[in-house]
Each structure stands twice: as C-alpha cells, then as structure tokens.
C-alpha cells in the first residue's frame, strides 16, 4: 500500500515540493532583507538594553519599510493557498476513483477498501503535515525580526506561524476528501471543498476576531506630552510590551485605561483557530471513512 499511495500521489508530492522550494526561496530572500534592515537600524542592541522603549522611531521606520506593499498579497496568499493545496490533494483521492470507475479495480484486489483508505490517509496526511510544518518553519524564520517588534496576533504572521497554516491545509484536505466521496467527481469536489472551507473560516474568525474573550484591561500611569500623544498606534505600545495589540486607549487624567490583547495570547489563539480547522478536518475525514465502510455500492 505504501508504494501504491506514493505512486498515485507522486505528482502531487512533487508539486508540493515545488511549492515549498518557491516558498523557501522567497522566504530566504525576505528573511535576509529584513535582517539587514533590522541590523542597519541597530534595533538588536536597542531591544536588548531598553526593551524597545528608546527606539520607538527606529522601530516605526523599520516596520514601515519592510511591510510596505508586500503585506496584502502575502496575507491573501497565506490565507487562500494552503486550503487550495489541501483540496487539490483531497478531492481526487476518493473522487477520481469513483469518477473513473477505478474503484472497481482498487477495491476488488485483496485489500479491503477501509484498510486501503486508512493506510492512504495516514501517509497522505503525514505528507501534508510535513509540508505545512516546513512552510511554517521557513516563513516563521523569515518573519523573525518583525516578530520581535511587531504584532503576531493578526495576519500576515498569524496565518503562517504556529499551527494555523498546517491545520488549514488539513481542513481543506478533509472537506475535499468527503466532497469527492459524495460527489464522485474530482473538479467538483475541489470546488465544493474549497467553498466548504468558508464555514470553518467563519467559525474561527468569530471565535478569535472580536477578541473579546482574551482582551485584557489595564491602567497605565503616564506623564507629560507622551501621555496626550498616546494612542492605539503608539510604538512601542502603551502597555510597554512589544507585541501587545492595543484595541482602545482612554485618557483619564494622569492615567490611561488601555484595552489590549497581550502578545502571550498568540498560542492560545493559534490553538483555538487550529483546533477549529482540525475539528472540521477530523469530522470530515471520519465521516468519509465511516461512509465508505458502511456504503456497499
């Protein structure tokens, strides 16, 4: 079964390798460029000594330089492409066998169809997870300098760091796999799976978007001109901690009432988002396996 799975998914595996190479080249270029911009402003020593308090202007100019016009395309790509890759791999696994009638060949050999599916799924999912982890690793490295001074809690970095990218690939895969079984059609399953992906996307956005659950509030003492100039866009953030996302600042005499999402919420948010995608993936894949086992057509 191992050879059979490899042989049937050979083209897809090589295509994913190609995609990874492209990402790696881009990531390498991006990462090196960012590091040179970072070092040229001496941000490294500044952060170590003052935690960013003394180099607000340098931080702002660095952020402006590197995120420029590249942010929006990067966000779109990192949002749209991973589930497409998952769907392209998942749709033909069952969809093409049923569409072309090769299921009559595959499931009348000496391996029962459920075992055939489970072994295939194990190998393909492992491959997709490795792909996801590799892309995540490269892009996380590339974005490193910006992560030191900026917010990780929103796209682009939220989409390609942590577990969310890998989980979204698996989600696209699972939905397209089930669509392939139900529709008995490859292209239709890719499209259906990709559109079905909107559901977990909406659910995860609702769960993490408004950020009400994880928003913290604090009061900060401040004085002088720095106080009146304080806003949600202050660099470094008024909480004094790089990476916090400040959602509102209210002036109250010599104090500021600040609502913010702490940088440390990154992993909880990742687990919520990734967990939602994975839950949909597991449900879809489990349903497909169960239906295949029970459906004797």
């Amino acid at each position, binding site marked *: 079964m191992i050879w059979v799975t490899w*042989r049937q998914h050979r083209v897809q595996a090589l295509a994913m390798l190609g995609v990874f190479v492209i990402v790696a080249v881009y990531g390498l270029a991006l990462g090196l460029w960012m590091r040179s911009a970072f070092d040229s402003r001496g941000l490294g020593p500044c952060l170590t000594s003052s935690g960013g308090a003394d180099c607000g202007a340098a931080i702002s100019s660095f952020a402006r330089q590197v995120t420029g016009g590249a942010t929006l395309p990067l966000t779109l790509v990192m949002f749209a492409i991973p589930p497409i890759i998952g769907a392209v791999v998942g749709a033909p696994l069952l969809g093409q066998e049923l569409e*072309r*009638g090769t299921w009559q*060949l595959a499931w009348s050999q000496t391996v029962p169809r459920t075992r055939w599916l489970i072994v295939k799924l194990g190998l393909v999912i492992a491959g997709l997870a490795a792909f996801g982890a590799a892309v995540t690793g490269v892009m996380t490295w590339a974005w490193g300098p910006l992560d030191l001074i900026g917010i990780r809690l929103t796209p682009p970095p939220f989409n390609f760091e942590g577990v969310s990218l890998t989980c979204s690939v698996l989600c696209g895969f699972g939905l397209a796999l089930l669509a392939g079984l139900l529709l008995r059609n490859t292209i239709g399953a890719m499209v259906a799976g990709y559109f079905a992906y909107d559901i977990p996307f909406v659910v995860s956005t609702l769960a993490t978007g408004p950020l009400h659950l994880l928003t913290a509030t604090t009061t900060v003492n401040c004085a002088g001109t720095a106080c009146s100039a304080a806003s949600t866009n202050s660099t470094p953030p008024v909480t004094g901690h790089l990476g916090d996302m400040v959602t509102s600042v209210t002036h109250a005499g010599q104090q500021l009432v600040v609502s913010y999402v702490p940088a440390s919420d990154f992993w909880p948010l990742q687990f919520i988002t990734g967990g939602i995608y994975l839950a949909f993936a597991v449900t879809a894949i489990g349903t497909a396996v169960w239906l295949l086992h029970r459906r004797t057509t």
Partner: protein
Amino acid sequence: MTHDVGSVPALRADRLGKRYGHAWGLRDCTFEVPPGSIVGLVGPNGAGKTTLLALTVGLLAPTEGQVAVFGERSRAQDAATLARVSYLAQDHPLYRGFTVADMFRFGRSLNPSWDAGLAQARMAALGIPLKRKVKSLSGGQQAQVALTMALAKRAPMLLLDEPVASLDPLARLDFMRDVLAASAESGLTVLIASHVIAELERLCDWLLVLNGGRLQLAGAVDDLLAGHAVLTVPRDAANRSLPGRVIERADSDRHAAVLVAAAPGLVATAAARPGWAAGPAGFEQLVLAYLRRAPVAAVHPGPVGTSGTAMAS
C-alpha cells in the same frame, strides 16, 4: 470435462437479494454452478448482472440471502472473499497514467497470491511493452492488460462484466481465446456477464438468465436445450393440450409455433399427433424467449447432479 456430482459448487446463491433504496436490483436468486464451468450470465441492462457479480466478489453486501464461492460465504470488504475471486469490471478500468509495469506492481502490492511471471509472460506473448503508459495502449491492449491483472491474481474464479463490449471483433476473439486457454489450463471457473447471446453460445456450458432482478432460467446448456422443444401445432390447439410448460407462442393464420419446456419423451408423444411436428430449440431462440417474457417469480433449481436444470414456474 465432467462435473463431479459430489464436489463443492464453485458458486452457490441462496435466496440472494440486493435492494437499492426502494428498488430491488436482485431478488430471491438461488442457483448452483459446478467448478470449471464457463457460465453465461445474460439479461438486459439493469437486469442485475453487475449486482450479482459485485455481491460475489464482495464489493457489495447482500440485503437478504447469501452467496458462497467454493463453499465459503462472500462477505463485503473481506480479504478472504476478495482473494477467492478475480473481477474484471465493465470498460476494464485501469489507472491511465500508470505504465503497464506500474499496474503489475500495483497488483503485486495488493495481492499476496500475485503471479508476476504469468503477467510478464502474457505481455511478452502479446507484444505489449511494460514501460508503455496505459493511456497510450489501444482498447484491445488495455483489455488484455486488465485481463492479465485478473488472471495473475491466481484466484480460482474469474468474473467478467461485459468484457468485450468496447472491443473490435478481432480483439474480442483474442480476449476470449485467452480466457478459454486460462480456463482449460487451470480449471478456472468463469462467469461472463453479457448481452451478446451469440457469443455466450459458443463459450458457455452453463447458463443463468436474469430479468428484472430475478433468475428466469438456470442450468447446464446441454440440459436446457434437451429440455425444450419448438412444436408446430394447429392454431386451435389449446395451451393445456401441450406437453410441459408453454414458454412462448406465436400464432399464425392456421398454425402456431410454441416453445415448450418439456421432457423429450413428452414432446415426441405430442409430435406424433397428426398435423403436429417438433424440433429442437436453438440457444439464442431459447434465451430470447425467456427474456421476452415478463419477469416471473424466481427459479429454485435442484442441486447439481440431478438434472442440473431448472426453469421458471
């Protein structure tokens, strides 16, 4: 090639039935087939031929009843069931992007009983290169590759679902020759589902006629032909005065031609009456007559070794 009366039947169905939603694809199907036979499974499209084959190989589970191959019950998605039967589906599906060698590797990976030598020998004999991709082979060559996959599995039973429907006449003949050679060499039991009756006549020594999901006729071809006759009788001869059972009757102005299911002795007695004559029924004529009838309640033949013949009641 005599059939041993006491041996385990190659295929045995017991009130086998399969329902799809509200419709029965196959109903109340009971028959036995001896080992080494070449069985013709004939019926119009939708008669239940593919359903019967799928139930035998374990691609489907029965709604009621059971089917057993060499005494072992067929279960859906069961490795032992799958190992006993080779299945060649309609349009001989293959992975088009695979090479012939890839297809054989596929067969080897999924079948412990795979005979790689047989597969390669057949390709060499047919002149089909192993490195060629399936999609660049002709239809006849693809069918031969698919047949090789089924034969190399070395199962004792081979199911062919309309195997030559899409082939040109020469390719059909070559394909069937290879099936016959395999059957003669290894005693393979073969079931051929087809609606090309003339072809089945030359190939088969056992016959199953399906219509509307029900078995209309089952038995050894020789016995079935011996058990039917075509009587030429005066038009006013009533059906009840005819020997055996009337299968089909065609009335002309003064006479009628009647296909009856009756023992030869009864036929001869009846044919001795003045103005009556009797002749044998042809294979195609017999099958078509049973197919033209509205599907009747299923047949329940006796065990193999009596007459081995059964006709619809």
